[in-house]
């Protein structure tokens, strides 16, 4: 059974979802790569920021 950490699960989710978003939502390969990276940063970044917010609220 796979037991990835929370961060690993977030990064895997962000990687695969961003790949599909990039390919399906843009026309040219260059735009696809740029949009894929943008989505990955938003997915992973928002998870990390929200984690810190929840940590600070819980203190």
């Amino acid at each position, binding site marked *: *059974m*796979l*037991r*990835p950490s929370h961060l690993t*699960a977030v990064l*895997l*989710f962000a*990687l*695969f*979802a961003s*790949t*599909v*978003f990039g*390919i*399906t939502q843009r*026309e040219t390969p260059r735009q696809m790569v740029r949009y894929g990276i943008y989505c990955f940063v938003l997915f992973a970044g928002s998870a990390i920021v929200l984690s810190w917010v929840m940590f600070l609220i819980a203190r």
Partner: protein
Amino acid sequence: MGTVPNKSAAAGKAAQQGWVYLPLIAGWLVPGAGHFLLRKWGRGTLLAVSIIAMYALGLGMQGKLYTGAQDILELLGLVGDLCNGLMFFVGRMMNWGANPVQVTTADYGTKFIEVAGLLNVIAAVDAHNLRTGRKS
């Protein structure tokens, strides 16, 4: 000299032939198959790898494959799972996945399986848009 453009034009024409909904249905049944039918090998491979990996990781984390719906949330989960096409039916036949969810990673796994299905539908619709010419 002039054979390369002719060849690619012929390949493009061949990709535009056939039933217009075939890439949509093929893409739903097998991730990336809609793009393969349209000879978009690179895009199809990346989509297939992403969606199949997400589904496999979900199963590896002992995610749940829904069998029926007792309430609205389970119904939504079942719809998400059904979007995986043949992968869902194979998973059900082989009795893959865990039920009930008992550990945190299994809950992640359930979400991975559902999101793989939703991404599969996005990919299938993209293949349909390529087929109809709405996207290039």
